């Protein structure tokens, strides 16, 4: 079941496009914003509202890397693993994150505080290595900086 608020936001997006299903990515974003991730239950509810089959919607949901089809932590760490960050040593940052959080890429801490994911180029190559946590971008990373940054996220 979608909440009234979710339906209101989705219908607003549907009104902006000539074909109903064109708003399905917005619908996934809206529901993920409210629930943190897209469960099978959510997927079926959105599909019904969008007048699509659940399979069709899932093919869209699983294509894009920032729609989460598994539960994620309260804070999402996206560490850039692309070329400029490779040259500037993202691997050391990754090692340090593993030591601090005891998780690898694709995993979530048992207390659901952090999910750690690799991410292609974040467009801050002149300040590599770089990562994002939720809405925030951190540049010119060092292990020392990372210790302080993580303290900000509960």
């Amino acid at each position, binding site marked *: 079941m979608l909440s009234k608020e979710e339906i209101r936001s989705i219908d607003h997006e549907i009104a*902006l*496009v*000539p*074909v109903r*299903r*064109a*708003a*399905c*990515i*917005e619908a*996934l*974003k809206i529901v993920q914003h409210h629930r943190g991730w897209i469960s099978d239950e959510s997927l079926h509810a959105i599909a019904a509202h969008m007048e699509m089959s659940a399979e069709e919607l899932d*093919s*869209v949901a699983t*294509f*894009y*890397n*920032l*729609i989460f089809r598994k539960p994620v932590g309260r804070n999402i760490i*996206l560490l850039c*693993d*692309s*070329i*400029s960050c*490779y*040259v*500037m040593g993202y691997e050391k940052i990754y090692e340090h994150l593993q030591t601090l959080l005891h998780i690898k890429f694709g995993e979530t801490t048992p207390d659901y505080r952090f999910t750690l994911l690799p*991410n*292609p*180029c*974040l*467009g*801050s*190559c*002149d*300040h*590599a290595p770089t990562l*994002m946590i939720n*809405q*925030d*971008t951190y540049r010119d990373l060092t292990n020392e900086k990372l210790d302080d940054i993580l303290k900000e996220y509960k």
Partner: protein
Amino acid sequence: MERPLTQHINFNRTSLNLKDYVSVGGYQAVHKALKSMAPQDVTKMVQEADLKGRGGAGFNTGMKWSFVPMNEVGQIKYLIANADEMEPGTFKDRMLLEGNPHQLIEGMIVSAFAIQANISYVFLRWAYKKAAWLIEHAIAEAYAAGYLGKNILGSRFNLEMHLHTGIGRYMCGEETALLNALEGKRATPRAKPPFPQVSGLFGKPTIVNNVETLSNIPHIINNGPDWFKALSLTSDAGTKLYGISGKVNKPGLWELPMGTTIRELIEEHAGGMKKGFKFRGALPGGASTDFLVEEHLDVKMDYKSVSAAGSRLGTGTMIILDDHTCPVGFVHNLEHFFAQESCGWCTPCREGLPWTERILLSIENGEGRMEDLDLLEMHTHHLGPGNTFCALAPGAMEPLQSGLKYFREDFEKHINEKKCPWR
């Protein structure tokens, strides 16, 4: 030296709001084009200026617009700003989006007028959170000031503008895949023809242009094609946003005359290589361009010269390979990216890229065989231009084929010594 795109961008303060932008001559091109020019004349002027697409392909922008059908009155058409900057090593559009969003919006209004499109989108990558906020705000300001909406400046031209933020995937930067993403589908490429200029978003004529391309439009309208051509040092017109990342003293981004040499970029603007690091090569325009090496340092960074040197200008943002970085690891990192970002639509790309990546990983880990180099070589042909549905796999093969050419000894050393000499 004139820097039309970045002259008003000041990163020590917030981005230009509407009032700031108008006070430095902003929106004059909208006044000029909508009040005193015919749409076809705008297209003609841009075509004469020889503004080549700054997203990487380098096609003449005015020429691209000229394929849009102009005879049907009331036809729905779309203009889209491609702000899905995701080419690894590229961070130039971010500067324009965050520093001067109204310049982009003005460029979009004039461009939409040229093709008589009444609906426009900024397709922005999700990671650019600050840009999203600034563009949203700038669009609202432009509506309030009458530069967007109905009957703009009394010209009877109407234009809606919307911001669409993506949810990941490199493929969204490919213009037909971007259209599928906007239609709520998987971002796979479409067959061409029909080209988007004729049948694009929702089957309607559509132009997709890069942010840097569109940001140049107001300046061309205000100053004319001859002025634009004179900005350049070579036969490719205009200025270019150049960037450098890697082990240099001052990585960064600079607007310079088109045709500035690689040497000048590295030595003067990026402050040279960091102490203790030597230049071994560079990808001149993002992850999907061929390596250039020391013998190419005096190559001019324009479309023709870089192409004559065996690579592509691409996005003009350069990634430097230094002597402390393993070339095999470097190329493996690139192919890992491309394998991951393949949309899976066509077989050579879906199957070939992961194969390439695994071979490179085994060589990097000291488990490679000499015949693996032949296998890699074979992939550079099988995944090359003409064999795949879009440009992703051929782009992925560019650093691999030139890597094998220029750093073959390093590949062989890994195989002979059964380890990575850098680890």
